[in-house]
């Protein structure tokens, strides 16, 4: 093999693809979207309401209005104004239905955000919230919590229970999770942060494989349909061509990862995000599995991509490979709940799943050194096998136009020396 030619092909692949709009978009847009998805929900959630909202109250028990107003006075907007103002609709002289009709009109006229209706039906209290936007979970939760507390207090008083004593006895409880490691007990960053760290890692891996894999298959289709392949194969051997492409593709992937890491580090610094030491400690291993996974899928794309002859076929192929890639996302939750289970351990040795599963396991519970060594060995072996098979298929398939080989032909190519 002529290394100069391999490097020239790699350089060509890299510069041509790195200049493509799709690559530049994915280079910039992916981290931007990650940041946006990461930060936007929390920013929106923290922001809450920006102006005072009028809430109608139809209270057939007659006992909620006062204490609820007191409670709501504690909730203020950043400008000091109250978040909610209650507007009561008495039900003593008017039927409850006409009160509801009145609130509905106000809601539709947008002079009122929503209305809380409390009915006492044979000793059982039924509370409902009416609004054009009943899915405002934050608001619903707040009123639900307040009203529940008021009604419970009222019932306790009626039953002769000392509410002060009850308040002391009935304290709400939050369980703190502590992760036990070799270094002793450390306060865990919580399930969600771990989960999202792994999840984001997997999504980045998927985007990486999909974008570069797709552009590889695309360029192979172009080279075959334009017959550039003839020129390439007369200028170098198919093996050189394959290695050049793999190398160029890897450089492309590495560029993308480097860009993401830089953006990630910059935003961690800028937003002063505290990353759990567990995730930081496993970062080199995460990177290793990511690279191994990338090499595995890139070699797979080269072999399978060389069989493709049309743009449509290339889409079908990439979507199938993507499905395989996405599969571990489906059982990410299971892995996080029980990273030690036999099935998770066994599936970690399936090369298609190893990178993603191990990424999740690394942040949830560090697998044993034997498992790390075993899965890395399996990945390296799998990459070797895939490159070998892809090389065999590649050298024949790249010169086949308009006809897909049969399975039998594929087997024959693999057997050929």
């Amino acid at each position, binding site marked *: 093999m002529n290394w100069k030619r391999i490097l020239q092909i790699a350089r060509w692949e890299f510069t041509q693809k790195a200049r493509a709009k799709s690559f530049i978009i994915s280079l910039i847009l992916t981290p931007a979207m990650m940041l946006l998805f990461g930060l936007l929900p929390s920013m929106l959630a923290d922001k809450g309401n920006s102006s005072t909202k009028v809430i109608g109250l139809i209270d057939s028990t007659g006992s909620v209005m006062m204490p609820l107003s007191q409670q709501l006075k504690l909730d203020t907007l950043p400008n000091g104004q109250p978040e909610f103002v209650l507007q009561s609709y008495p039900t003593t002289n008017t039927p409850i239905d006409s009160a509801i009709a009145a609130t509905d009109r106000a809601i539709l006229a947008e002079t009122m955000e929503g209305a809380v209706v409390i009915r006492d039906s044979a000793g059982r209290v039924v509370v409902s919230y009416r609004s054009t936007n009943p899915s405002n979970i934050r608001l619903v939760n707040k009123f639900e919590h307040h009203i529940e507390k008021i009604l419970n207090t009222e019932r306790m008083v009626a039953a002769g229970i000392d509410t002060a004593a009850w308040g002391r006895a009935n304290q709400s409880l939050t369980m703190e999770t502590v992760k036990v490691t070799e270094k002793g007990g450390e306060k865990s960053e919580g399930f969600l942060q771990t989960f999202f760290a792994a999840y984001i890692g997997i999504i980045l891996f998927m985007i990486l494989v999909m974008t570069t894999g797709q552009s590889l298959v695309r360029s192979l289709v172009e080279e075959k349909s334009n017959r550039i392949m003839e*020129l390439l194969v007369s200028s170098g051997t198919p093996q050189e061509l394959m290695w050049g492409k793999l190398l160029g593709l890897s450089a492309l992937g590495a560029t993308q990862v480097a860009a993401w890491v830089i953006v990630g580090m910059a935003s961690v610094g800028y937003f002063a995000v505290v990353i759990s030491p567990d995730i930081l400690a496993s970062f080199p291993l995460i990177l290793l599995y990511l690279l191994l996974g990338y090499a595995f899928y890139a070699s797979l794309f080269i072999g399978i991509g060389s069989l493709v002859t049309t743009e449509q076929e290339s889409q079908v192929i990439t979507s199938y490979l993507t499905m395989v890639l996405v599969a571990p996302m489906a059982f990410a939750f299971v892995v996080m709940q029980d990273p030690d289970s036999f099935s998770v351990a066994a599936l970690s040795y399936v090369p298609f799943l190893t990178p993603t599963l191990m990424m999740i396991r690394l942040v949830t519970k560090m697998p044993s050194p034997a498992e790390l060594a075993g899965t890395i060995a399996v990945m390296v072996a799998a990459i070797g096998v895939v490159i070998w098979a892809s090389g065999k298929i590649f050298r024949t398939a790249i010169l086949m136009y308009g006809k897909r080989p049969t399975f039998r032909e594929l087997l024959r190519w693999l057997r050929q020396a």
Partner: protein
Amino acid sequence: MIHAEGLHKQFATVHAVNGVTIQARQGEIFGLLGPNGAGKSTTIRMITNIIHPDSGSITYSGAPFSDSIRSSIGYLAEERGLYQKSRILETILHFAALRGVAPDTARRRAADWLRRFELSGSERRRVEELSKGNQQKVQLIIALIHQPQYIILDEPSSGLDPVNQELLRSILDQLRDDGRTILYSTHQMEQAERLCNRIALINKGKVVLAGTVQQVKEEHGGNNVAMEFEGDGRFLRGLPMVLDANIYPNGAELALQPAATLNDLLPHISGQLQITRIERVRPSLNSIFIQTVRRATGEAIPATNSNSITHSITNSTT
């Protein structure tokens, strides 16, 4: 010299190349002729080492294929294309680098070739912005940029206008005079006749005819008459002394019975056609091509791309 000896290549049930032996010598243009699907391109792909023969051997100035020989082959494929989104100069430089040409040298040569092909100023244009003919010129530059000893061109003039065909011809003449070995595959006989020193005609994977253009013409020299006229010459085909006829809109080439003379022919023509020229000629390569292929297949074949043929021969007795 490129020497291919007894090449065989089978694809599934098709014996695409069946014992082809050819020799293209240094300092000559060797024409590889044949109808579509004859096995020309398969032969060429074996010579360029893109595919391997099932049996037979190929040597380049006596040596088998090697990596250094790969870099001394300039190849223009029959069905060809380029990276459509890439720029012209960078594409040329990429392929030059693959053939081991130093960047500075490649740049200098590329500028020279682009000037000769009247493409100066297009260096930074994208391939897709060029006309088909101009794309082909870029492909020719790619085939020649590394100054190859062995130049293998598969239908190089298809897509070129007459002016550029002439330019290609002069370039090939010059390369031949420089001592390169040129293998030129075509099914355009007029070109082969004008350009090639020696030819081999391939049909159904076999060489059916070989030698210098003169030799081939002499060996297959029949009793031929070329004429130009005004009028409908289709009746010529039915004349008793005519064995074979290529009828064009304003002329014809007739193969006469061995004993027939011009004097036998003229009485049948006078009054029917306004003759402007008539002479006894050697058969054109085109006629020989058609006759040989027909003889080999034993059936009528449609006239190939030979530009001016309007009616093919129907009453061959051979």
